[in-house]
């Protein structure tokens, strides 16, 4: 016990903090650069890089961006959130790449009273006392599934099989599909799961085949979402494939090859910016986004995730403009003003959606935020 002293003495030396210059706005950004969610996490990172290059000051106030990696771990995300607020004194947080970690950050935001812009699709019920300190940029998972389920219905699909990831994303898509079924959507005939590192989905595919569905809903994400499609085609499945924006990934297209051809997914309009009519809300800002993204990251923005980071940034910029008139950055009053501005700003046009947030809901998007796109010759084509 006596050696405890040493430990305490060592800890005492660690409490220095680097203060940001007053009047600068500090933004904290968390994403997964390692671990299972890093494939998506890197896209968020590229998106925020583009956003920062797009605009890095508001009304003469410089914006400092602090970026942290959560390694796909919710408890690391919690720790990062505390670090951002308590050590870096950020005014607002943006993050992160997985649903549980985003939920975890939201809890911290509520506790420490700092606005939080979630960029992962999550399903959160607003509890009675309200969630005044956070919003979520992406379309709700249920909306993503609903839009594609509506399309299935329109195309005369009565039953659909489901294969998805053994993780929170798989749960969200499956629950969305079940909800759509309740509202007259196609009947879900199976709930098969696989993990990203599985060597085979033959068994799951066989089981789906046995239920003889008209179509298959793919609840995977990124590259490995191609695995069930490949397997189903190999087993001779003739029906259509449907999916969510999580399939919008270059390597999904490459690996899916012929099997993935014709798959239809719901997607933010940013995916097909160039194919949109000029009158579309996302056309102008989307074009700008693609331009900056290419300049900063050296590659095309062909995913949906980077757009969420970008839209989160836009929401913040618009709110900051209002909040700066009321309080100084770095103060609790500024945090409060930012959050209120996020709720009071109306019709913010982003690359994905037109955002209208209220304290009553975590989400600020409507059905305008999703279009259906189809994979034709390895390109995502807008399907009005």
């Amino acid at each position: 016990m006596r050696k405890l002293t040493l430990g305490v003495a060592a800890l005492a030396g660690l409490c220095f903090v680097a203060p940001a210059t007053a009047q600068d706005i500090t933004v904290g950004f968390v994403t997964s650069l390692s671990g299972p969610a890093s494939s998506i996490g890197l896209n968020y990172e590229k998106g925020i890089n583009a956003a920062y290059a797009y605009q890095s000051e508001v009304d003469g106030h410089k914006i400092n961006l602090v970026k942290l990696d959560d390694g796909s771990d919710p408890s690391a995300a919690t720790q990062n959130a505390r670090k951002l607020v308590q050590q870096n004194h950020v005014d607002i947080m943006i993050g992160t790449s997985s649903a549980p970690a985003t939920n975890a950050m939201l809890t911290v935001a509520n506790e420490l009273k700092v606005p939080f812009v979630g960029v992962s699709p999550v399903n959160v019920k607003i509890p009675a006392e309200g969630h005044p300190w956070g919003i979520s940029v992406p379309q709700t998972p249920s909306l993503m599934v609903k839009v594609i389920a509506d399309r299935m219905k329109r195309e005369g699909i009565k039953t659909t099989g489901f294969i998805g990831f053994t993780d929170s994303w798989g749960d969200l898509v499956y629950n969305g599909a079940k909800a759509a079924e309740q509202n007259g959507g196609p009947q879900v005939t199976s709930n098969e799961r696989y993990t990203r590192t599985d060597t085979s989905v033959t068994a799951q595919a066989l089981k789906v085949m046995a239920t003889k569905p008209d179509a298959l809903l793919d609840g995977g994400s990124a590259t490995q979402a191609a695995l069930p499609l490949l397997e189903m085609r190999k087993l001779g499945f003739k029906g259509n494939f449907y999916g969510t924006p999580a399939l919008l990934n270059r390597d999904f297209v490459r690996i899916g090859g012929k099997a993935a051809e014709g798959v239809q997914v719901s997607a933010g309009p940013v995916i097909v910016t160039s194919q949109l009519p000029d009158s579309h809300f996302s056309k102008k800002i989307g074009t700008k986004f693609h331009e900056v993204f290419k300049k900063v990251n050296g590659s095309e923005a062909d995913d949906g995730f980077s757009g969420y980071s970008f839209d989160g940034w836009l929401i913040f910029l618009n709110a900051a403009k209002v909040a700066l008139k009321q309080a100084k950055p770095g103060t609790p009053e500024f945090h409060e003003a930012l959050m209120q501005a996020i709720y009071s700003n109306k019709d913010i046009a982003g690359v994905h959606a037109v955002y209208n947030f209220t304290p009553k809901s975590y989400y600020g998007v409507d059905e305008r935020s999703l279009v259906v796109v189809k994979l034709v010759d390895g390109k995502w084509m807008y399907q009005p």
Partner: protein
Amino acid sequence: MNSQIAAILTIDGIATGAIYVLIALGFVLIFVVTRIIFVPFGDITAFTALTLADLESKRLPGTVSMIVVLAAAAALMEAVALLRMGARERIPRALFYYLVLPLIPAAVVWLTAGMALAAPLRILLTVALILPLAPLLDRIVFRPIADGSVLLLLIVSVALHFALVGIGLLFFGPEGVRTQSLVDFSMEIAGTPVSGEAILIVASAAFFSFLLFLFFNFTLYGKALHATAMNRTGARLMGIRPHQSGTIAFLLGSLLAAVSGILIAPVNTIFYDSGFLIGLKAFVGAIIGGLVSFPVTAVGSIFVGILESFAAFQSSPFKEVIVFSILIPVLLWRSYSFVHSEEEDEE
């Protein structure tokens, strides 16, 4: 479930199991010779697949820089160790083994980067590139603690796995790869379709297991390895250096990992971190063999593959739970049916 489905599942399971066989044999081989449970085995398998994919898409694989860094580090450590021992004259030889030899395939790959190579050549280059990986890691990470307890070695091995996963992400990126098919035919056995790939995997696993058997029973090195495994002190008295047999074991392990990586690359998408679960499942097979017996390990690994396949069909969300839970009865059976020496668990 009808018999048709059962047949498909069994074939799928055997193909998966055959991959596990190769990895599990590597586990057992390295463990009996060095007492190291080489957790990063699966990572090397994954790196092989990623390297092959890079060569296929005419990119310079990250493995090249990895090997260069590791070879330099290993050569440096070896040179310093020899200097301290006052064995200056042995340094050139050490440099040859630890620096020049591993760098030859790396140099070839670097020189041919961007060229379109024939598939067999790509495979050959990949294997040559991967081969020095495990021995170099052994030199850098495990040699300094070779006398440590099994537990210490295990924990270091786990830490090494974490490091390799990070390095994999750094060098190969977060996206998965899948390479072109090695063979393009399929056939029917009793009305059940069997892909050429499955046949190739099973045949290769059988072939390399047989090769290993020949190596152990009919070559001098193999016998030396066997002797080290049986009795470390005895082997040393017989003039077999444990370091040397360790290096050979790791080299063979590398080979097995490389082969499994080549085989798995066209049938599944492999990520930088896919190796861990593949390795763990192979490990279940190795444990069924008690980390001692090669034949039981092979049978055990096939069993794990089939179990996984059927478990996925019965209840895919609980597939991993089923596969890993099987370990507990297996371990109990082993602990009751085999007498361990009492001294083993003392300090």
